[in-house]
């Protein structure tokens, strides 16, 4: 034990020594000024032009545009994204739990197959639902409108978010369990207050 401890100096000095030992093969670029890509900017501009203050642009990066929107407007914005901007399918629906904000975020990653100019693009549509400390999935205030009638492809994804986070999607035709067992009676497992034993 003693020898291993002496071999491993504290973190700070290791950081320096490893950097000296192996110079990175690609020269580090100087911090370039942040360039906002024009095409992505035009997508976010169209949404802001249409909805004004109701939406907030999270970020505009290369190939990725993030739009934050309140739960009351998420359905309208999604319809505009489909009809006005030619996005046609949802790749992924992720829940993210924020206990400190008392909210659960649901993030839709929307892409397009038909429009070749959008093939690289992913539009990130994020909305937030109220979070309950003692959840009763399906019977509490943790609710969002479903996007299943706008994007058919969210059907199974939203079922997964319902069972893993307890976010009930109003208007979803099939809010049953998908991956968890039917008799699961604990907290929704991907919430932060559900902890793994021994960790």
């Amino acid at each position: 034990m003693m020898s291993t401890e002496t071999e491993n100096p504290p973190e700070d000095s290791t950081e320096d020594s490893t950097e000296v030992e192996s110079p990175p093969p690609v020269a580090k670029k100087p911090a370039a000024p942040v360039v906002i890509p024009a095409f992505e900017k035009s997508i976010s501009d169209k949404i802001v032009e249409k909805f004004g203050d109701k939406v907030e642009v999270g970020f505009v990066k290369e190939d990725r545009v993030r739009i934050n929107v309140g739960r009351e407007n998420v359905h309208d914005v999604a319809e505009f994204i489909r009809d006005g901007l030619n996005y046609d399918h949802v790749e992924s629906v992720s829940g993210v739990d924020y206990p400190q904000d008392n909210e659960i975020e649901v993030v839709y990653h929307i892409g397009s197959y038909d429009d070749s100019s959008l093939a690289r693009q992913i539009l990130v549509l994020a909305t937030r639902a109220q979070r309950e400390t003692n959840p009763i999935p399906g019977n509490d205030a943790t609710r969002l409108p479903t996007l299943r009638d706008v994007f058919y492809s969210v059907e199974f994804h939203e079922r997964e978010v319902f069972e893993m986070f307890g976010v009930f999607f109003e208007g979803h035709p099939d809010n049953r369990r998908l991956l968890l067992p039917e008799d699961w009676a604990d907290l929704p497992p991907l919430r932060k207050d559900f902890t793994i034993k021994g960790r």
Partner: protein
Amino acid sequence: MGGLTSTSKGLYNKGKIGMTFKLPPGLALQKVDERIMTLNVGPQHPGSGHMRLIVQIDGDYIVACDPDPGYVHRGEEKMAEYRNYILNIPHLERPVIHDSCNVLYPYVLGSEEILGIEVPERAKYVRVIASELNRCIYIMYWLAIYGIFLGHSTMFMWPAGDRELLIDLMEKMTGARVTHAHFVPGGVRNDLPPNFEDVCLRQVNYFEKRIKEYAAIFYDNPILIARTRDTGILSRQDAIRYGTTGSVLRASGVDYDLRVKEPYDVYEELDVHTNVMKEGDSYARSKIPWLDMLESCNIIRQALQKMPKSGSVRTKLKPNPKGKGLDSVYKRVESGRGSLGCYIVSDGKVEPYRVKLSVPSFRNLIALPNLLRGEKLGNMPSVYWSLNYWPVEADR
């Protein structure tokens, strides 16, 4: 007589049992028609993999299908929130152990962006070679299963045997036969062994010659064509609407391959051809992966030629690397089954705040009930396995 009918009516009439018993959310009462029979296919049945299909049949025809995945749900996403960016690697490849390089790829690309790491040029080429070899290994395994479920035993033996060649190659490269854990943020774990390029080129050339023989025994086989042609037709509009991906999407006539459309690492410098078929039936869906393997051989040969002959393959990491505060990234790659996305949220700690894998098997699953409706029960295996579905991946 009359009395009997009235009591039985009273007992089963609405209001007595139905109204007092309130179902918890997530459960639903189902009316049963005498004509319809409900069949449970799986989870133990080998024909369904580790999942259950609740199939309702009218005579020989399927009227409804309800897929019930989740028998191999292991909570990979929850586990990822408790381990740092490096410790997540061995367990995140577990959903698809025979495609382990590709399933790790988006996670590694995402962590590199969050941690701000540059990757050496040679490592990028090594990654491309490893992921293309892994794609072939995955597809050969899938093809073996597809063959045996269509009653074609030779198509089980041949791919299972030829797959060994590539597994040996991966063993030389990474040290492990199936679970490689080879990709790490900043490059790959080890450099290629000496003389690997020659061995790889020789084996890949032989492999290509070998899989071309599959056409004669399998893809041009009249029995296979009779069983898979015009079954489970997925139209182009539906393929897009359901958000399917990979071979399912390309078999329906959509020209979409992330290696061409959103090239990652060095795919930009390689000449990648996308295979598209327009039929959208089970035959097209079973042929596209085979064409992909032939294309993979081309890509490997190009990468071997263009790869820098020497140089570093891994940027050294600081211990316990962390992100720079609240950040999120969504990266996707083309895996053996289709586009595989990874959404990582970081809050500046050593562990990721949230890791979400958007897996192609889960995305393609939504097409299954729609494809099976109206199909004969005997066609179920050919439609189900043609979706290139891997149950363990869908459950994560």
